[in-house]
């Protein structure tokens, strides 16, 4: 009984950590972008204010229960992903739901949110939103290929489907996977650009084309939930990358440094890139990134 309370407390704290770090990173993203654009930019905590302002909105309109659920699905996805991904090496207080096969479960979970969102968006009746979510799903089919290939390569090479096992491998050999499986790392990094929906792969929200796409009918508390879910999910994904390729992190400082360096990749790439069209984005992911994925699998099969 005590252990359940203990774990629950750990889960709540990890959620708070993920939310804080995620939202701060979003603010830093805006700050960095502003500095490149010769501006001062908003304060780093601006996104906290945005989220709380949206939460304090008095009216919250939804066109039906599925739209309501769309936001909930996103949050559920984010929290589940967060619970599966180990935040620290040997973390007793952040035990998370590690089990053999969690990597496969994670792959499924990362698709789940988008699908749930699609259901919700379908009910808003806004054509822009419908087109936006279609684009989002199309793009997902694009980046899922290199991403899955990279993970499969790792699974084959180290004969495990558990994230903790992969982290232990890195701890034992003393080499990060980004060096021992470089092709998988490259494929995963390129897939990450799509996963973060930053320019040039922001085709799902694309304000100038679709008036922000799926979220165009979401306002007030729903948008607040979506933003928080986005932040938590982002943190979970960054932590996953750190766990897989940088051997996880043993303390908070290492976690922040490592996740932030991963976070900088899509941000800096996004500042100087225009947006792809949907089919161009898919073609991009099915080009070099998928090739790297294939090479990674071949390497894994040979080295096995």
């Amino acid at each position, binding site marked *: 009984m005590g252990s359940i309370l203990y774990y629950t407390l750990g889960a709540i704290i990890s959620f708070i950590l993920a939310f804080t770090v995620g939202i701060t990173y979003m603010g830093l993203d805006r700050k960095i972008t502003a500095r490149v654009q010769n501006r001062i930019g908003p*304060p780093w905590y601006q996104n906290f204010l945005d989220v709380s*302002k949206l939460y304090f909105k008095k*009216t919250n309109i939804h066109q039906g229960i599925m739209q309501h659920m769309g936001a909930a699905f996103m949050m559920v996805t984010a929290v589940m992903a967060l619970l599966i991904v180990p935040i620290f090496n040997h973390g007793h207080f952040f035990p998370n739901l590690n089990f053999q096969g969690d990597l496969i479960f994670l792959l499924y979970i990362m698709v789940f949110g988008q699908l749930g969102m699609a259901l919700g968006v379908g009910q808003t009746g806004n054509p822009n939103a419908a087109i936006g979510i279609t684009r989002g799903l199309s793009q997902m089919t694009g980046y899922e290929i290199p991403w899955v290939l990279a993970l499969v390569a790792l699974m084959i090479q180290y004969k495990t489907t558990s994230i903790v096992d992969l982290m232990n491998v890195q701890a034992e050999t003393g080499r990060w996977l980004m060096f021992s499986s470089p092709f998988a790392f490259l494929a995963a990094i390129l897939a990450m650009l799509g996963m973060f929906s930053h320019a040039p792969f922001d085709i799902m929200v694309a304000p100038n084309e679709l008036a922000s796409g799926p979220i165009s009918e979401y*306002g007030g508390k729903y948008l607040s939930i979506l933003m928080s879910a986005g932040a938590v999910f982002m943190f979970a994904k960054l932590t996953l990358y750190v766990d897989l390729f940088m051997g996880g992190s043993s303390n908070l400082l290492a976690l922040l440094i490592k996740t932030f360096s991963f976070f900088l990749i899509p941000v800096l790439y996004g500042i100087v890139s225009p947006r792809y069209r949907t089919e161009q984005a898919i073609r991009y992911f099915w080009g070099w990134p998928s090739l790297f994925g294939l090479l990674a699998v071949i390497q894994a099969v040979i080295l096995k």
Partner: protein
Amino acid sequence: MVFNDKNSQKIVDIIENYARKSSLWILAYGTGCGAIELPPTVTSRYDSERLGIHFGATPRQADVLLITGYLTTKTLKRVIRVYEQMQDPKYVIGFGSCTINGGMYWDSYNTINALDRYLPVDVYINGCMPRPEAVLAGFAKLQKLIQAGKADGANKYKENLDWYRTNQKKVIPNWRMPEYNW
């Protein structure tokens, strides 16, 4: 300080209003020529984003409806609809002399002359064209009003809906507005 219901409500109000005033999302709708001064306002010399001013793409997400200049009756119809789709609390800024008294279009057959007859205006920014500094000053004024809890145009609109509707229907002959919940 005694923590009773009234006091804690006050504290909540202060926090809420602080969040509201520091994160003002403008609806990206250039209703008139004033929209030309908005891009400079967000760029390096004026940089409105440091005050938390940001552009929202759809009415559902926006807090501030910026009426940038004159409104023709055709646009007024859309603006009313957009305003009613926005979610509380919402603010209207009348931008430029045309929204105040018609400006130089005072005798035009197609533009309205006083915006506050049709929508509740919280802040007016005068000038034609108002400079970016004036725009920022207008936003600063709005932030002050919000912090003091005085920017309640939306409530006024709800209370006096009949009066506003009468005025609106007077200039929009064919009303044909869809029914929606707001």
